[in-house]
């Protein structure tokens, strides 16, 4: 399925945005509108939590599945590349796994446009949760995700972070 998206990304974005639901790119932009995110794993898990715990009623299925660090979505990985190519986000590299993701000015405008369609309580919840998710290091967010969503931790390479 991810091959289809990679082959005709524009068509995918168009079709998904027309159903009124948020897609992976939208959620990434909304997340980054509340501040930068550092680390690939942190980005995957914050989008997962944004999708599952704040924006579930507003999002399409992001196709998360269990992977070596818990829930993983190729759509998120592909969307990050797409957003960078579109000049909506910047990715600053600082060594292995230390990408910092942040919005460009154009990205801020786009995020604001998407945000306008959401109720204030959802926007505030996302803002508050982003601060809380950031306070974790990568192991911290994995501990939380593995405990609350153990069905996504079945293939983990770090089983010591599982709760039970």
């Amino acid at each position, binding site marked *: 399925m991810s091959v289809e998206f990679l082959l005709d990304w524009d068509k995918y974005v168009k079709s998904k945005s027309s159903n009124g639901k948020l897609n992976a790119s939208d959620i990434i932009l909304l997340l980054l509108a509340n501040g930068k995110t550092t680390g690939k794993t942190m980005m995957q898990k914050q989008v997962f939590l944004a999708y599952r715990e704040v924006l579930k009623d507003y999002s399409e299925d992001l196709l998360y599945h269990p992977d070596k660090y818990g829930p993983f979505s190729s759509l998120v990985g592909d969307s990050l590349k797409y957003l960078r190519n579109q000049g909506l986000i910047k990715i600053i590299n600082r060594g292995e796994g230390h990408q910092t993701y942040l919005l460009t000015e154009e990205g801020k405008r786009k995020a604001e446009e998407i945000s306008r369609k959401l109720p204030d309580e959802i926007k505030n919840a996302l803002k508050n949760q982003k*601060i809380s998710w950031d*306070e*974790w290091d990568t192991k911290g967010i994995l501990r939380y*995700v593995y405990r609350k969503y153990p069905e996504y931790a079945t293939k983990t390479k770090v089983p010591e972070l599982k709760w039970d």
Partner: protein
Amino acid sequence: MGLDVIPHERDVNNISRLEIKYGRGAFETPNRFVNKHDLNSKSGLGVNVTLTKMRNLFINEYRINLETLQSIQNTNDYLANVIARLEDEFNRVDNSNALKALYFSPNKNVIKKITGGSNIRKNVTDFIIDIIENLSTEIDLYLFRVELLSHITLNHFGSDRMTGLLDFLRQNDLIFSPVIPIKNDLAVTNYTESYMKESSLVPFLSYTYSSYPYARNSYRFIMNRLDKIHEKNKAIITLDAPRVASWGADVSRIHYSNFVISDITAESFRIVFDEKGKGNTPAMRFRLFDKDNLSLPELNNIKKRPEEYWSDVSSEINENKIEQLFFRIINRSPNAEDIKNNRPVYMSRIYENIVSTKEYSKMRDSIRTSDLIGYRKSKKEMNSLLEKEQL
């Protein structure tokens, strides 16, 4: 970007409610910093409680010991490593509106070397300037031991000449606070007077922690000036406070400091080792914050039913598995995974963060309504210690 200290109500012993305003937000005192111990405990449990939203202030401590000093002087890429580490740590609060403070904290041995030789002082202060210039995180407040800011030794005042660091801070309009060793009453007297005259670049006077009997003269001197310090729009920070004293009453030394002179208190960032050099076992180190006494008794000394303790955090920690962990610990039956993963220690600290924050709010309310003494008397163990020390 400024930092304003606005005094409001004043109560017994001149303890005041202050409002601290800065670029991104504001908070009130008395209060305590969130530190790395707290964030690490949050990560260690993976618990979803927003610490820097509960208390809008965070402090990070860069400790300089003899080994660090060696690296500063001899290791080429040490600066890059320190900056990367500090940025990783500040990244965790970067999107929060909390005030961000960075404390450069040399230990006793390094201070001895700094005051003994100007070359070493220059090595260290140049290194600090390099850190400040290269950090991409926006820091609201820097804290430095006075020995790093001034060429004079603590006991010889007079022909002072500022160091490159002090010069750098002033030239760049960086907000900073001198950290004065409380046990040295001569230093307290001179530096307090001197920094009280400083501009708005110095909104806080900071002192290291001591219990009152061990720094009585210093404390009396500051207490006598507390109203003047506040009226000059300056507040007092106490640094390096232990969570509890190594002997005597189990009262929270963070809360204790706020009943003496402190507007804001920061716990010392240290890892406690037992006599064999190993950390105490997690079960042994579990202490439960007791709001009725502002104390941190060990499990054997807690007085209420476990349910009564849990009800103080149940609305903030809304997760069954964390609740089950709490009861396993408090009923002295943590499982092997709990012990292996240090969960009792993390739980203790997260519990304290939530309940202690609520107590600070009540303390501020009592100052607002001129009933600090009533609040204090309701905290039996704390009050008893303060009375014993004639405070």
